[in-house]
C-alpha cells in the first residue's frame, strides 16, 4: 500500500519546503489540508506557487487538496465521507499548521495551536493505519527558562514571553499525554529566518519585523545583552532535517531540537550584520546614517515602551509592541541540547549552513521584496 501523508500547514515557511521534498524524494500521496478561507487555488497553482514544482502528471496525481480548518471539529472537513476516507487511508500525519504570531491574545493562540493540535491528534487517533505523526513545535516552549534546555524536558513553571510559546507548550503537553495512542515525534524549531542559498523568506515573522524597524530607523533599543546568542536557522536546512527525521529516521515519543547552536550570531552581531547587509543591499540607505539600536536592560526597555504608550505616539507604540512580544526572549539565554537529533543525524552540524554565510542574503531579500510586498 502506498504511503498517504496528511499535512497541515503545508504552505507555510517550512511546510512548503518539506512538501516539496516529499514530492521529490518519495512516492507518497500528499493530502494537503488548506484553510477553507485561504486562496490556495487549484492543484496546478499550488504546485507551482508554493512548492516550485511543475505540474507534472505524477505530481498532479499524487496531490489532493482538502479544504478545512484545524480549529473546527473534524478539522473543518465538510464532507464526512471525505473525512472517513482520510481516516482509512492516512499512514502519516505531519502537523505543521500554527499561528506563529507572537502578539495574539492567549485565547486566539490557544484556539489555533492547542485546539487545532487536539483536532489533528483526534483525527490521528482515529486513523486505522497511522504509522507516524510529526509535530512542529518551537524550541521556545522553554519560555523564560535559562541555561541548558534538553530535548526530553518540557514541563516548567518559568513562564513565557509570548502567547505563541505558551500555546505551543500546551500543545506539546497534550501530545505527550497521547504518546501511548499516537506515535508522535516532536520537532522543536529555532527561529527560521530564510533560505540559506537565496535568502528567500516566504513567511515574515517577528525577527523580520525587527530587521524592518532597523531599516526604517525606528528601532531605538532591544532588551538583552550584547553577547546573547540569537539562534537562527535556515528554512531549507530545517526542511531537509525534518524530512530526514520524519521520513528516514522516524522515532516516536522523541523530541528533537532543530537549532543552530554554537556559531550563532550574538545580539550585537545581529545588529552589526543587519546594518552591514542593509548598507550592501541599499546604498541610499547608508546616507540616512541611522544609529544602531542600543542594547538595554529589561527595565530601560519597559520604561521606553511605557513612555511611548503615555506619549500616545501611534507609530512608536506599534513598533515597540511588535518588538515587545519577542524581544524579551533576548533576556533569557539558552543552550539547546541536541543529543537526540545528533544520535539520528550525526552529520547535522557538518552540513548546517552557517548563519554568517547567508544572513546578508536574507537582509537583501527582505529589502528587495519590501518585506514580502513584492514577490
Amino acid at each position: 500500500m502506498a504511503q498517504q501523508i496528511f499535512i497541515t500547514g503545508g504552505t507555510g515557511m517550512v511546510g512548503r519546503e518539506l512538501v516539496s521534498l516529499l514530492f521529490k524524494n518519495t512516492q507518497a500521496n500528499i493530502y494537503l489540508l488548506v484553510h477553507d478561507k485561504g486562496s490556495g487555488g487549484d492543484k496546478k497553482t499550488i504546485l507551482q506557487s508554493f512548492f516550485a514544482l511543475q505540474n507534472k502528471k505524477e505530481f498532479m496525481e499524487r496531490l489532493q487538496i482538502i479544504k478545512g480548518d484545524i480549529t473546527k471539529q473534524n478539522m473543518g472537513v465538510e464532507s464526512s465521507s471525505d473525512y472517513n476516507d482520510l481516516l482509512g487511508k492516512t499512514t502519516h500525519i505531519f502537523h505543521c499548521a500554527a499561528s506563529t504570531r507572537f502578539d495574539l491574545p492567549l485565547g486566539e493562540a490557544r484556539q489555533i495551536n492547542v485546539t487545532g493540535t487536539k483536532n489533528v491528534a483526534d483525527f490521528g487517533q482515529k486513523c486505522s493505519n497511522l504509522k507516524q505523526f510529526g509535530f512542529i513545535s518551537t524550541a521556545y516552549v522553554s519560555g523564560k527558562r535559562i541555561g541548558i534546555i534538553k530535548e526530553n524536558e518540557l514541563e516548567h513553571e518559568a513562564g513565557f514571553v509570548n502567547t505563541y510559546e505558551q500555546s505551543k507548550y500546551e500543545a506539546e503537553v497534550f501530545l505527550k499525554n497521547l504518546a501511548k495512542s499516537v506515535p508522535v515525534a516532536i520537532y522543536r524549531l529555532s527561529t527560521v529566518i530564510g533560505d540559506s542559498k537565496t535568502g528567500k523568506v516566504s513567511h515574515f515573522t517577528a525577527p523580520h519585523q525587527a530587521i524592518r524597524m532597523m531599516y526604517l530607523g525606528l528601532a531605538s533599543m532591544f532588551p538583552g545583552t550584547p553577547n546573547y546568542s540569537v539562534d537562527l536557522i535556515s528554512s531549507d536546512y530545517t526542511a531537509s532535517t525534518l524530512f530526514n527525521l520524519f521520513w528516514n529516521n522516524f522515532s516516536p515519543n522523541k523530541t528533537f531540537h532543530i537549532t543552530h547552536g554554537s556559531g550563532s550570531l550574538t545580539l550585537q552581531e545581529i545588529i552589526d550584520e543587519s546594518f552591514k547587509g542593509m548598507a550592501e543591499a541599499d546604498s541610499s540607505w547608508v546616507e540616512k546614517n541611522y544609529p544602531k539600536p542600543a542594547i538595554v536592560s529589561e527595565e530601560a526597555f519597559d520604561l521606553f515602551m511605557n513612555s511611548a504608550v503615555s506619549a500616545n505616539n501611534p507609530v512608536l507604540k506599534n513598533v515597540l509592541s511588535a518588538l515587545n512580544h519577542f524581544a524579551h526572549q533576548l533576556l533569557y539565554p539558552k543552550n539547546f541540547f541536541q543529543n537526540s537529533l545528533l544520535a539520528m543525524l550525526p552529520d547535522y552540524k557538518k552540513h548546517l549552513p552557517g548563519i554568517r554565510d547567508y544572513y546578508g542574503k536574507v537582509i537583501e531579500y527582505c529589502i528587495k521584496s519590501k518585506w514580502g510586498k513584492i514577490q
Partner: protein
Amino acid sequence: MHDFGFRECYVQSNNESIEGLLLNSAEEVLRENKTTGDSITRIFLYSGINSANNQDEGNALNLFRYPAAELRHKLGLFNANAIGLSQQGCSGLLSAIDLADQLLSNSNTQQESILCAAVDALPAGTKREIMYNIMSDATAALVVTKNSEKNRIVYFHQEFQSYYWDTPQHENELLASYFPMAQRTIENAVKGAGLTMSDIKWFVPHNVSLRSWEILSKLLHTPMEKIWSKNISRVGHTVSCDHIINLVDMDKDGYLKKGDYLALFTFGFGANWSCLILQH
C-alpha cells in the same frame, strides 16, 4: 505632561521684553565675572528659533534689526565683534561655547573673553508642548575666558545626523534615534575628556522629560541621583538656556564643589547631540 515631570512653564508676558531680559542676563554675568568691557572681543548671540523681531511690518529695514548688535550697543562692549548664531536647536549655546573656546585657544592675547548669550522666546500663540516637552521662554548669558578658574572647559563632543534636518518629516525616526545617539554622544564625550562615567559628579541636563532621563540613566548605567533634574518641573525646557539656568541654580543651592566634573548634555534639532564636559 505631569507624567513626564513637568509642572511649571514660563511664558513672556505682554509687558515684558525678551530683549530686556537678555540685557539683564548679560549685565549680571559681566558684573559677576568682573569682566571689563574692553576684554570682550566677541559676542555670540544664539537663538534656536527664527526671530520674531525680524518681521517686515511694512518697512524692509526691520529685517535688519539685529539683536546681537543691540546687545553690544546697550552693554557698551565696543571692542566686540557681535554676531548672531542660529539653527542648532537646543545645542546652539553649547556649540557657541565650544566655538568661543576654540577661538580663545588660538588667540595669543591672555585677557580676552567672549560673551555667549542665548535668547529663547517662542512666538506668541505657539503651542508650548513640543515633542513631549513643555517649553518656557528664557535668556541666558555666560563669559568664556582663557584659563577660567571656574567651570573649565574640558572637552566638547557633538554628533550630527543631518538626515533628520526636516524635523516634521522625520519625527519618529528622530525619537527612535534619540537614545542610542545620546548614549553614544555622552560616552564619547566622557571618553574624549579622558574620564570614566564614574568621574562625572553631575549630569547637568537639558530639561526635557524626566522619563527620558530615567531611560538614559539606565543606558548610561548611572544613577538618577547624579542627574540634577530639579529644574525640569520648576522651569521646564527652554530651547538652549537650560544648562546655564541649571548651573546657576546648582551653584546657588550648593550642589557644586570645586573640581567636580560636570557633563552637560543636550539634543538639538537639525539634528545633533552634544555633550560639554566642564570642571567646576
